[in-house]
């Protein structure tokens, strides 16, 4: 009986304790700066080095490049850049290898959609995803 009484006292005490609920959809849950959310892509920074494609463990990144339109400048610029968020696991490896920080993480994480097709994000979408961009990379 002693153990049961102690248990009852414990639950009663907890009744007035601070509640742990997040008011999630009403109030956004603050995520720390390092949080790995949906990537933001800077097309102007990309040098089409293909390192992110190579490191991606799930092969969810596809990119194509083209020659720089200005004939005096060497190198290539990005033409298309797609991330398939059906299989992206937000592992952070692409941002880690990127030498120019053209691809960085943001704190946005809400990816739910009504169709799978919506999860296929292209260059334009990733460029416009410019809120809550992570500072350290």
């Amino acid at each position: 009986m002693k153990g049961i009484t102690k248990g009852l006292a414990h639950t009663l005490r907890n009744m007035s304790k601070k509640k742990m609920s997040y008011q999630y959809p009403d109030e956004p849950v603050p995520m720390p700066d390092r949080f790995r959310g949906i990537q933001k892509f800077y097309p102007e920074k990309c040098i089409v080095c293909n390192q992110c494609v190579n490191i991606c463990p799930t092969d969810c990144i596809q990119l194509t490049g083209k020659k720089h339109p200005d004939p005096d400048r060497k190198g290539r610029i990005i033409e298309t850049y797609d991330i398939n968020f059906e299989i992206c696991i937000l592992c952070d490896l692409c941002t880690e290898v990127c030498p120019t920080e053209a691809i960085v993480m943001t704190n946005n994480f809400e990816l739910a959609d009504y169709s799978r097709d919506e999860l296929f994000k292209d260059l334009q979408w990733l460029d416009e995803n410019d809120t809550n961009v992570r500072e350290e990379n």
Partner: protein
Amino acid sequence: MEWMMELLKSPPGLSNLSTFLILTLPVLSIVLGFVTYAILAERKVLGYMQLRYGPNRTGGRFGLLQTVADVLKLLIKEDTRPKEADRPLFILAPVIAFVPSFMVLAVIPYTESVMFANIGVGLLYFIAISGLTTVGMLTAGWASNNKYALMGGMRSAAQMISYEIPLLMALVGVVLFAGSLNLVEIVEQQQYIPYILLQPIGFIIFFIAATAELNRTPFDLPEAESELIAGYHVEYSGFRFAFFMLAEYVYLFAMSALITVLYLGGWNPIIGLGFIPDLVWFGIKFSILVFVFMWVRATLPRIRPDQLMEFGWKVLLPVAMLNIFLSAILKEIFF
């Protein structure tokens, strides 16, 4: 009460039948109202004890319409029935489970004037009728043609039978003191001292056995979620499921009211506080009991079936017997 007796003696007819039906409506609405808010209260109490808020969306900050919404959802849900189920029994089971729970409410006296039937053997009636619900659960378990449901049904039958006995035995003490099986008289006998003080052992036995009868934690084996998924009502959906839920909470209402009447002195005020109306006194005592049931549910793990049987037969029953002897001796010496 006079007109009630006249009505009972009047010849049967359609008009009488409709009068009877209309008379039950207030009880039904009170009970349904209670059930609605008891479910909400239970979820709130559990929530607050578990560091959550409980329902807080439907119907304002306190989720006041949550249960209403839930019941509406159950009403419009598809009524599924397993293909190999025993059809007539499957349909009958929720009714068998629910009707007795409502029938027992007739004898509970809330105050001296607010009561529905003042029959001489009210206590016996209550216990006898409430035992019928087990049949409903067993039927549900059998008719669903589901192994988990069958196990739940068997468990519930075993549990109900073995806990009905200590429950009754604990009552004998009260009956000895009051000298009556009439619930109103039992309350009147407690004008000065509620029986919880004279019968502490009896009260504890009755409370434990009542928890078991109500299928509530720690005795919720028939519907043990982690073992039997939901026990006897695993195959039920929609309104049939709602009937089982309803039966469970109506019994919570009935049992708490019965304990209030038997042990806490019913509507009798604490001496010196008589200016508060009787019905409020009843409500306060009743609410405390309901809270304790919820509190116990938030705290305890589930007991094991074989230990449950052992506890019922080897501990509760002998103690209840002892309680009868003690009560008899007390009664002989002091009263």
